[in-house]
């Protein structure tokens, strides 16, 4: 039993304490009233957030992305040899940070899972106060984080995401993608595969069971059917499955003579190696050689797959063996610092960081709506394409030749590389060779193409 005893002394003490608190200088910051937009950098530095997978099936790509992002920050701050800032066609970056503020960064682990990626992104926005988030190797993660950035009011520069939905069904005003998409891969690969393997082929697809796998399978199906090929079956496989034997064994007896692996990262290394182990490459089916195609791969995956990648066709956004001054500068910068050539996920993240910094310089502010306007630009268009949607921010010198950041859907349009596994690699880095550079006109699509419809950019959100 206790009684609340109110003594004069107790009341005086409480009153003094309360008064002290009330009298202290304080001001209210509701939402972002003192700042014009969310996380407006007030001091002499500005923070970027790099959200990459450090664990999970795509972790090898994530590691490379982080290396490239660190390099980009160094170059922005004027350290190192400047890399692709020297070759970039837009000359607003002077090496003194962005808008005079030194660039710092924080990194987070997406674990290749949407939940963890969003939590990491929220922590970076709320706790670390970043103005931009870049990175990621999975389209599921990219779409989830893009949605979060749109709601919160900061810019999302996508890293490696290949699904059509990222700038299609799920496109958002605050999100921008430099990497190419599944439609472009299909458009580039279709004619090449038909030429190499003939028009009378039956294909079987193993597809990662999430948004990227679905759109890539749909794109490959569309373009291969246009070449006269027939689809036998499309089987979904879980991400990170590891052991694909139960999915591979039915392929041999299914009547197909081409296997298309819509897998990425560690999944692709396993499924390709196991497909070869099960003797699929050596088989004959329907009177022809059995072939395996991996529509999207990267240097790291090819390295992981070892000899199994020989002769396998695929597509890439960029490759270090491209012969242009920007690529050479980047390979030199990255290679001298880290000892190995950059992968295409590294290049896309590096390019995105530079593109964002440049857009801020041109807009004169970090305000997301200003950056969106700068990247939409609408003054440039690609040659040879007759379409009302052919306008946006045109640039070159970041490794891909002339590239257009299309304003209708914030997607970059550039030439696509069709690659093939080299039969006789001279070192461990050139196990892929460029078969053809498909020009951008052949992979162009309208914003209302039915593989990309259903979404709406909406309005930019500055978090105010």
């Amino acid at each position, binding site marked *: 039993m206790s009684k609340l005893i109110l003594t004069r002394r107790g009341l005086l003490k409480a009153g003094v304490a309360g008064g002290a608190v009330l009298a202290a200088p304080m001001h209210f910051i509701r939402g972002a009233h003192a700042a014009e937009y969310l996380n407006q950098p007030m001091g002499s530095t500005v923070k970027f957030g790099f959200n990459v997978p*450090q*664990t*999970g*099936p795509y*972790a*090898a790509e994530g590691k490379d992305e982080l290396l490239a992002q660190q390099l980009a920050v160094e170059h922005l701050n004027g350290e190192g040899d400047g890399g692709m800032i020297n070759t970039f066609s837009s000359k607003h970056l002077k090496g003194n940070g962005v808008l005079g503020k030194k660039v710092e960064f924080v990194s987070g682990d997406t674990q290749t899972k949407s939940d963890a990626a969003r939590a990491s992104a929220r922590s970076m926005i709320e706790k670390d106060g970043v103005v931009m988030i870049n990175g990621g190797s999975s389209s599921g993660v990219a779409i989830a984080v893009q949605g979060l950035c749109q709601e919160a009011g900061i810019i999302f520069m996508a890293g490696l995401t290949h699904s059509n939905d990222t700038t299609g069904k799920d496109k958002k005003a605050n999100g921008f993608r430099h990497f190419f998409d599944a439609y472009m891969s299909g458009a580039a690969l279709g004619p090449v595969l038909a030429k190499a393997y003939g028009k*009378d082929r*039956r294909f079987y697809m193993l597809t990662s069971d999430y948004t990227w796998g679905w759109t890539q399978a749909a794109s490959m199906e569309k373009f291969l059917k246009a070449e006269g090929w027939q689809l*036998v*079956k499309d*089987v979904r496989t*879980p991400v990170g499955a*590891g*052991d694909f*034997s*139960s*999915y591979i*064994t*039915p392929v*041999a*007896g*299914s*009547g197909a*003579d081409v296997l298309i692996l819509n897998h990425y990262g*560690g999944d692709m*290394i*396993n499924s390709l*190696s*196991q497909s070869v*182990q*099960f*003797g699929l490459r050596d*088989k*004959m*089916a*329907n*009177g022809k050689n059995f072939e395996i195609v991996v529509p999207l791969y990267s240097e790291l995956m090819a390295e*992981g797959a*070892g000899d199994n990648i020989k002769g396998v066709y695929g597509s890439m956004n960029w490759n*270090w063996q491209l012969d242009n001054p920007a690529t050479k500068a980047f*390979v*030199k910068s990255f*290679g*001298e610092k880290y000892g190995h*050539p950059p992968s295409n996920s590294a290049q896309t993240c590096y390019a995105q960081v530079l593109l964002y910094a440049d857009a801020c310089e041109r807009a004169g502010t970090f305000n997301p709506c200003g950056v969106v306007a700068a990247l939409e630009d609408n003054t440039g268009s690609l040659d040879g394409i007759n379409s009302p949607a052919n306008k946006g921010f045109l640039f070159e010198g970041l490794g891909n030749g002339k590239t257009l950041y299309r304003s209708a859907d914030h997607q970059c349009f550039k030439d696509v590389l069709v690659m093939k596994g080299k039969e006789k690699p*001279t*070192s461990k*880095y*050139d196990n892929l060779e460029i078969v053809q550079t498909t020009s951008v006109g052949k992979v162009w699509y309208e914003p209302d193409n039915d593989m990309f419809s259903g979404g709406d950019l909406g309005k930019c959100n500055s978090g105010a």
Partner: protein
Amino acid sequence: MGAAGCTNSCAEPGCGAGTLDTIILQILNGLDKGSAYALIALGLTLIFGTLGVVNFAHGALFMIGAFCAVTVQRLLNLSFVQIDPTRKDFLGNPLKVQVPYVDSWFGHDVGAVLISWSVPLAILLAIPVMFAIGVAMERGLIKHFYKRSHAEQILVTFGLAIVLQEIVKYFFGANPIHTAAPGTFSGSIDFGALIGLAPNVIIYPYWRMVYFLFSVVILGGVFAFLQFTTFGMVVRAGMNDRETVGLLGINIDRRFTIMFGIAAMVAGMAGVMYAPILAPSFHMGMDFLVLSFVVVVVGGMGSLPGAVLAGFVLGILQSFASMNQVKTVIPGIDQVVIYLVAIIILLTRPRGLMGRAGVMEE
């Protein structure tokens, strides 16, 4: 081989493979998966039957075995750098060639063979290492938990599994590490031709068959050990009635410690040989653990033949459930069939397929 007329289902003749071939392939797949389950479940049942301890860290032991293979591969691949002025690297500088030490000590051919056979060689490393780890675990931690409730045993071994997993992640990184099978076994054999069916239809990777045969040998060895040696006899007696054996003056504790070490060894060796099939990563233990426990309860906690039988049966069941023909009837069955079977067995016959009546039947 006529392509015309082939549709999705492959029951038509001349379409590549008939249903019999698919069934045989899936049985092979199931035996291969089932071997891994059986080996892990065997270790779990040994520990539970002798010590009465539920060991949630068993999956981690499997994982450590796989990383023994990775370690041996890395050790054999330790190399020094030699500059080769005749070749250039990607930046245009003279190429730095990595020359493995074994190559320079034994010559290139022997070195290459050694590196190629690193996985079977790893068994030599795994046996003492896993035994030592098992004994250390038992003496250090598990023995304090004999008298405590099953829930606490689960908790402490779960925590131990996390610790082991994180230590491996720290040293080896978070990515799966590709470990190749020896060169002679990395191809596939034409199983169909072997058993007299049409050639070139049933093709199965060599190494998976090797794994199955290896696991049969180990299982046989463990059973023979328990059946035909005095040590094994004492252990079996102790599994039946620990107290009486102690009253007879036999130091059962030491023998049980050695059994724990042996169970850890079995799990480790299962892991070593599994490395070429599934690239080892720090979380592979947890992935196998759930399924192994399901196998143990289906087989019967405390019954060794039951665990092995259940392992193979569930492996084959899972394989069959992932056949396309089955999946068109019940979509998604392959993901859940093992759990469904476990639930049904736990409800109808809780002592499992071969458990002794009255054991843990609450």
